[in-house]
């Protein structure tokens, strides 16, 4: 914008000779100031949002770890020799009737499951075990590789000392014979490494936590 005096002389702010104390603020200057203010406000708002996000994430973590601790405490409540059979993925070896135990998957109130979780569960209990064989319905067991389980076949899980998982402290001796072998120790373990994994659809995307522990049998004198 160009201002002119009555004599037709330009009165731009940059006109030399005009006392600086008499010059006003140009629209550009105001726009610059407003832009700076907007940037400052947006930074402040981003900070508030990120604080809220952190709070949500912390809350989800607290719920997840609380659920993981509770499932471990429930495992401690069972007879130690039955813990593996109650909480593994194989319903056929449950104490009592097949399928009567809670199994290795569990829901958590307040944490929605991942869309990829077909059973709608959030938590999973994991042992150093592998599915090494199948028992086809009506047929004799056939050996297949892990992950190559056939439809209609029932996986047979084995608790193994040679399972490789550094976070579970494996491989290691589970039955106290000082030998790490490739046999099933589901019936004679003395210590039981456990991993509890929770995966859920958080407010800010899919999230997961894991908890590791080692169960053992402790008896009063």
């Amino acid at each position, binding site marked *: *914008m160009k*201002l002119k*005096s009555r004599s037709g*002389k330009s*009165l*731009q*702010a940059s*006109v030399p000779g*005009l*006392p600086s104390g*008499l*010059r*006003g*603020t140009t*629209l550009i200057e*105001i*726009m610059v100031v*407003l832009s700076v*203010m*907007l940037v400052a*406000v947006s930074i*402040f*708002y981003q900070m*508030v949002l990120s*604080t*809220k996000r952190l*709070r949500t994430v912390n*809350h989800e973590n*607290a719920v997840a770890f*609380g659920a993981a*601790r*509770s499932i471990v*405490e*429930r495992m*401690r*409540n069972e007879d130690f020799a039955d813990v593996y059979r109650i909480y593994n993925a194989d319903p056929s070896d449950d104490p009592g009737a097949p399928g009567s135990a809670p199994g290795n998957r569990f829901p958590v109130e307040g944490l929605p499951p991942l869309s990829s979780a077909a059973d709608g569960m959030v938590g999973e209990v994991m042992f150093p075990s592998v599915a090494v064989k199948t028992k086809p319905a009506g047929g004799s067991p056939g050996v297949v590789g892990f992950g190559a389980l056939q439809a209609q076949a029932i996986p047979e899980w084995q608790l193994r000392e040679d399972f490789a998982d550094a976070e579970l402290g494996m491989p290691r001796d589970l039955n106290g014979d000082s030998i790490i072998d490739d046999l099933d120790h589901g019936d004679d373990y003395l210590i039981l490494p456990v991993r509890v994994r929770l995966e859920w659809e958080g407010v800010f995307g899919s999230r997961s936590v894991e908890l590791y522990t080692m169960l053992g049998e*402790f008896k*009063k*004198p």
Partner: protein
Amino acid sequence: MKAPHRSGFSLVELMIALVLLGVVVAKLTIVVEEAQRSHGRETARMAIEDRALQVLDRISYAIMGSDRETLFPDPSMPTFTPRLEYRVSMGVEDGQVVLGDEEVISVTQDGSSVYWAENEGQANERLVVWSNDVSQLLEEELLNGSDDNANGLSDESGLNFVIDRNSVTIRLTLQGEDSEGQIIDHTVEATVTCRN
């Protein structure tokens, strides 16, 4: 003598600046107020949740160290108790487990406070109030004889214990107000197993 030329704002410039300033100030006010409200709500919720988790941890550790045989009363689903007495194992002497003094975790008669006491009602009583914000009933539960919150219990108190063999499930609802006076409930739950 001619007056010196003075430049300033035109009315149009002033109006544009004022309108822009007004819009910015209005938006800023809305943002700041909402941020303050949100911060107040979140702070209050966070405080209640932290207190609830703190009390839950205290109760959990107390029960973990207790001797299962000393737990009293012994309610199993669908019954519960707002009061749990127990004794802690102090060690073994001459092959015998030595137990500590009788301890109790309970809510006060008005149901608003949770406390821990040792030798309750005796001359050497020790009593510590762990929280004064306990809700009368667990979150979403109504005093109507029904299981409103679908946890298998009816009309359960704000602090309650359910025992299943060696495990104790603890449920606790704390209640507070946020910065706008709105009631906030926060419920925590844990299952612990007696180690002794």
